[in-house]
């Protein structure tokens, strides 16, 4: 690898052709749009010959998994068409979870195991079936043990897939309210009358089921 394609030498002579080829390669790789020869020339050191470097680069990539292709009067690098079957996964469209879903998920994560009634109690609005279904389908939540209370409601808990996605080692590693506040995520003080729901009760410990159920039974 040539370490120094830089200024002082380029004042006097164009960089060697191999170096120019590297430059064209890097520019085509990183550009968001196809690049014309004129643009290449403008970006490369004075005296460079991008057309020749391009031709060499193109030859170098012949038969590789990536090719140098012409797009109109510009150039770009593309994966070889016969490998398109590998790219299916690249086209998944990512969408943000709806607010209802993320809130429901957050409540389950912090209060698991949580029943639908508890989620509704905390959010203050009904939880639609679709929201829970979506989270189940994403495999971020699953059914937990039934509650031993009248009606024996189903509970929800978060899954390993949830922990993986959010980069957590366990649900207990979720920051508590105090930490959320310290991180600047939480500016407002709890609404008055929420004393029972305030910091101390659930701080740091989604495990204290005793305290939690108390919270919901009030």
């Amino acid at each position, binding site marked *: 690898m040539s370490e120094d394609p830089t200024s002082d030498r380029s004042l006097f002579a164009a960089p060697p052709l191999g170096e120019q080829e590297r430059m064209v390669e890097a520019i085509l790789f990183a550009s968001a749009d196809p690049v014309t020869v004129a643009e290449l020339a403008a970006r490369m050191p004075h005296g460079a010959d991008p057309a020749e470097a391009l031709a060499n680069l193109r030859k170098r990539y012949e038969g590789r998994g990536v090719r140098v292709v012409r797009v109109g009067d510009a150039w770009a690098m593309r994966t070889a068409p016969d490998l398109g079957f590998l790219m299916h996964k690249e*086209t*998944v469209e990512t969408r*943000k*979870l709806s607010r209802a879903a993320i809130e429901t998920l957050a409540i389950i994560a912090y209060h698991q195991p949580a029943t639908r009634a508890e989620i509704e109690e905390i959010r203050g609005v009904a939880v639609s079936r679709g929201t829970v279904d*979506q989270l189940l389908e994403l495999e971020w939540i699953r059914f937990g043990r039934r509650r031993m209370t009248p009606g024996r409601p189903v509970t929800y808990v978060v899954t390993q897939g949830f922990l993986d996605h959010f980069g*957590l080692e366990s649900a207990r590693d979720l920051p508590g309210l105090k930490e959320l506040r310290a991180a600047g995520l939480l500016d407002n003080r709890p*609404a008055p009358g929420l004393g029972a729901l305030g910091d101390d009760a659930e701080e740091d410990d989604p495990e204290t089921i005793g305290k939690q159920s108390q919270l919901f039974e009030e």
Partner: protein
Amino acid sequence: MAEPTPFEEDSQGIRERLSAESLIVDVDGFEGPLDLLLTLSRTQKVDLRRVSVLQLAEQYLKFVSDAKVLRIELAADYLVMAAWLAFLKSRLLLPPDPLDDGPSGEELAAHLAFQLERLQAMREAAAQLMARDQKGRDFFVRGIPEDMTRKRSVRYTATLLDLMQAYARIRTHDEFRPFTMDRHHVFTLEEALDRMRGMIGFAGDWTDLAGFLPEGWTADPVRRRSATAATFAASLELAKQGRIVIRQIDTFAAISIKRKDP
């Protein structure tokens, strides 16, 4: 130049003021007592492990007392450190007390030197880190991530930050939230009005307002508070409408109402 001018005193005053201000700036420039100590230790120009903690303590104490003379507000942690260094200094200067099993002055000094060396090391590490080639500045990712097929599946994502913000939002109720949620704890003004309209017809004599509280709302203090407030507000509304009169005999005494006879 040597010629005295009538402004001499003034310019000296300005100089003093400037030097005082520059010190203020200096205090502001330090990120806490350790940072200040680290800066002071640099003037000794020796390996941090061999820095003279005694000398350092003296420099720090002098700095702090100078700062106080200049009436600079010093943060508490600067003063805590000053007190600790004064303690350390006494330990270093006095012969060890054989009855005291606390740490020796040397041990304390060694730990301080360690803290300074560690902070210095982290600063250097941070500088080395930031001097590395960085993505988006020195090296670059693929400019056109490819989209080769028409087959599309939707993947839902959310970040941990989204999750925590959602939870924080719910728990702080910093946005509009339907009131219905707390209805079993909150007796609304409308409910109180409805209730009282039906009852005042019977209140020909002074009746304690507490008597109008609905059943099941008197035991739990939270519920009683809400019901009392709503009932009182409703009574004010009814008084305004000219349907009742209100009376309170003394401060904090019970409030009574009576139907206003036409």
